[in-house]
């Protein structure tokens, strides 16, 4: 595959992400409006932050006239998982990849864009991620704007159906490696179970879902990493790139 084809395949994978984003950020727009944002503010705030839980936290703090420090802390906590993802991505970059590529890809790490980027075998090809970003992020911004303007015009049934698009994508990202590797299957099963348990235990279920995600991620990934150390797959990764190129050409 040449760079243009890779870009196009990123664009295609970005469309379902964007559709899911639109639904989610539409509801975000309703809160943004309460925080005093107009449609243009909403578009840029969302397109430059691209974080559902983070934005939700900040908008609700704005409604309550929180201090600037509180807003900074909320952003930090709600987005801390992106720091882990950024570390993970740093290991999938070719050393020669420029600072500029690293900056732009880092800037747009979201759960979904990270997911599709890391799901590709071998080193990261920035063009793929740019395709996904270009398809998804404008819809994220537009969804917020529409939410601010239109409020609750969209029928509940449509919002309800659209809101699982995101989760459908998450499933499609985690299941294939779980099918291939027993350790991932175990990690995913434990994650489902503990996440559910934490959502019903009194006290723990009052923590924000962002905080719960961080705690569970560090805990589960840590324990699984001790029990099932992952084989070094650098050689494998390189050979995957080669075989992929061959298949494509």
């Amino acid at each position, binding site marked *: 595959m040449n760079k243009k084809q890779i870009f196009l395949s990123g664009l295609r994978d970005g469309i379902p992400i964007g559709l899911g984003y639109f639904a989610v950020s539409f509801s975000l727009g309703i809160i943004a409006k309460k925080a005093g944002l107009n449609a243009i503010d909403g578009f840029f705030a969302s397109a430059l932050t691209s974080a559902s839980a983070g934005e939700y936290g900040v908008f609700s703090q704005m409604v309550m006239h929180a201090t600037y420090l509180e807003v900074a802390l909320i952003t930090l906590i709600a987005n801390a998982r992106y720091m882990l993802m950024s570390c993970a991505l740093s290991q999938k970059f070719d050393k020669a990849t420029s600072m500029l590529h690293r900056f732009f890809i880092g800037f747009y790490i979201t759960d979904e864009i990270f997911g599709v980027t890391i799901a590709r075998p071998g080193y990261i090809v920035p063009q793929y991620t740019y395709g996904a970003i270009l398809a998804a992020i404008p819809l994220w911004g537009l969804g917020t704007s529409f939410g601010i303007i239109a409020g609750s015009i969209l029928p509940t049934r449509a919002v309800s159906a659209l809101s699982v698009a995101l989760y*459908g994508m998450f499933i499609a990202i985690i299941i294939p490696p779980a099918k291939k590797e027993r350790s991932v299957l175990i990690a995913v099963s434990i994650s489902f179970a503990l996440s559910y348990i934490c959502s019903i235990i009194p006290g723990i279920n009052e923590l924000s879902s962002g905080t719960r995600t961080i705690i569970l991620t560090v805990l589960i990934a840590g324990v699984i990493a001790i029990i099932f150390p992952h084989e070094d797959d650098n050689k494998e990764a390189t050979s995957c790139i080669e075989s992929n190129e061959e298949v494509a050409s």
Partner: protein
Amino acid sequence: MNKYIYLGIMVGVSCLIRVLPLTLIRKQIKNKFIKSFLYYVPYVTLAVMTFPAIIEATSSPVAGAFALILGIIASWAGLGLFPVSVICCLVVFILELFI
């Protein structure tokens, strides 16, 4: 309190969190535990965020649960991101017509 200062803080902090590790860590990490940990992080995070959130996102939890199960089956059978997403949406849309 100026809304643009709030938004600026949000954009700035989100950017630093994401960009710093990616630009500062330029070497391959050698430590086996850290490598394994980072390998599992994405799958665990996404799994934690999917369930039970998927059954809370829909009007009817049952529809969300079916979307999860059928999504897993479809993905296990080898379908990609877009088809799996569409299947999940359709399952919810159709089931909620009856529930």
